[in-house]
């Protein structure tokens, strides 16, 4: 029995959404249900995904489930920081595949503006190993910057190549009405921007955002009644790496990406070259370049050249993040994975309008939690 994604939805991503988390989730949920033959009461279970350190509400699953009218169906909360909603999709897949539930809603959200900037700054420092690394004043950009520095040294990757990832992101952001930043940027804009954590500058980094996403999953039998264009989950891979930097064997790639990718390709019985369109976790420009390599879109060290040759644009070897990616959409932690799923599902349904990759049949979602801490790769098929 195959498991399908039958509906996808998303709110605009913004700096400050101005509504409550329940209302934010409702928007994404409503969007996912708008074109399909499914009533909320037919949903058998829900999985609510966010990073709890930004929530004021304790145990948000109950609140969201109630507001979406899903009570008394079972609900639970799933968290793997930035990949929370990919983890939610994995759990949803297990529910449906095991026949525990026929139809599952995965709702990811984050209202990062729920807490003050000072509170955000305080939490930023605690994303590392709090006993041995946080006391040195680290945060996410510094973590990825250390990978960028090592990648540049080992492979000769340049700051210009990093910047070209953002130039691509900016180009496609103009075609995504839900993106937080909808503006083109030039190579020069990127290179002269202020340094955040060397060698990463402002445009090498994504921004905090508010937003919600929704993915509706169903069994094969139900899926065909709900929609004429189900998209099938063909492969799922997940892996973890050490939270500590000192525990890492690899400083020029994310081993959890490699492992999750291998699992997903094997389960889907495909290779990297079979992927027609991909969403990769570009929280920083270096993260996209490492993803190209770790997923096998190019050889190790070839990521800089791949973007330089524009091979990840539409029309290139493998179009990547043609919705603008996290770098332009914004990164509302718990909602991000669901937004990536939405983009790939619309591509495989042929509904991606101006960013449609012609004839896309196989899509890939790569969603990372932390600095290569949680790796999730999912392969979808038309």
């Amino acid at each position: 029995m195959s498991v399908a994604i039958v509906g996808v939805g998303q709110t605009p991503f913004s700096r400050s959404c101005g509504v409550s988390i329940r209302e934010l989730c409702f928007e994404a949920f409503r969007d996912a249900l708008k074109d399909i033959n499914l009533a909320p009461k037919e949903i058998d279970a829900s999985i609510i995904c966010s990073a709890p350190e930004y929530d004021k509400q304790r145990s948000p699953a109950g609140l969201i489930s109630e507001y979406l009218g899903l009570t008394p169906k079972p609900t639970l909360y799933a968290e793997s920081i930035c990949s929370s909603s990919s983890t939610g999709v994995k759990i949803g897949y297990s529910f449906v595949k095991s026949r525990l539930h026929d139809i599952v809603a995965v709702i990811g959200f984050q209202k990062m503006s729920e807490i003050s900037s000072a509170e955000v700054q305080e939490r930023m420092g605690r994303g590392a190993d709090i006993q041995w690394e946080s006391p040195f004043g680290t945060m996410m950009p510094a973590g990825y910057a250390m990978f960028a520095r090592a990648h540049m040294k080992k492979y000769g990757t340049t700051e210009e190549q990093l910047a070209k990832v953002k130039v691509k992101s900016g180009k496609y952001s103009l075609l995504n009405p839900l993106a937080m930043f909808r503006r083109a940027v030039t190579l020069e804009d990127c290179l002269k921007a202020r340094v955040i954590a060397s060698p990463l500058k402002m445009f090498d980094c994504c921004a905090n955002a508010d937003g919600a996403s929704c993915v509706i999953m169903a069994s094969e039998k139900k899926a065909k009644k709900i929609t004429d264009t189900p998209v099938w989950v063909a492969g799922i891979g997940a892996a973890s790496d050490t939270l500590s930097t000192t525990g890492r064997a690899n400083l020029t790639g994310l081993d959890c990406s490699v492992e999750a990718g291998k699992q997903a390709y094997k389960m889907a019985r495909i290779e990297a070259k079979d992927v027609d369109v991909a969403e990769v976790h570009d929280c920083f420009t270096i993260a996209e370049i490492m993803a190209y390599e770790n997923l096998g879109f190019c050889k190790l060290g070839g990521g800089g050249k791949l973007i330089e040759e524009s091979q990840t644009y539409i029309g290139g070897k493998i179009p990547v993040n043609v919705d603008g990616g996290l770098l332009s959409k914004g990164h509302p932690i718990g909602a991000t994975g669901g937004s990536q799923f939405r983009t790939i599902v619309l591509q495989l349904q042929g509904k991606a309008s101006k960013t449609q990759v012609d004839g896309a049949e196989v899509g890939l979602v790569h969603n990372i939690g932390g600095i290569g801490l949680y790796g999730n790769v999912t392969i979808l098929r038309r």
Partner: protein
Amino acid sequence: MSFGKFGKISYVSQTKVADFVKYLEEGKIMATRCSGCEKLYFPPRADCPDDLSTDMTWKELSGKCKLLTYTTAHFAPTGFQDDLPYTIALAQCEEGVKVYALVSKDVNEDEIHIGMDLRIMPLRLPNGRITYELKKAKASMR
């Protein structure tokens, strides 16, 4: 002894390896070694996941290490802003373990390069706090 005095800001006060701070105050950078499988751990651990042993002994590191990667941070989490900019580094110790620490303010940013020789040194901070940092290795040390 409380571990809470470790680092500029500590988020952990109770740990089985709190003696690390006592040794640090004596000028020693200590790792732990599993008595069962002999695996060396730095930062130190009280428990070995490889053979589930809790029989660990302290082992002093030479402090000699080489820079693996680094970044100079221009933004900081709460409590660290006054120190900006600062260089965070990961180095490989000659014993094989890795160390995560700041590069000493004595080292010019333009001198910092991957592969350079460094030395882990205890660093006393205001208010009785203590940490370690990475200093440039001197020729006399080899």
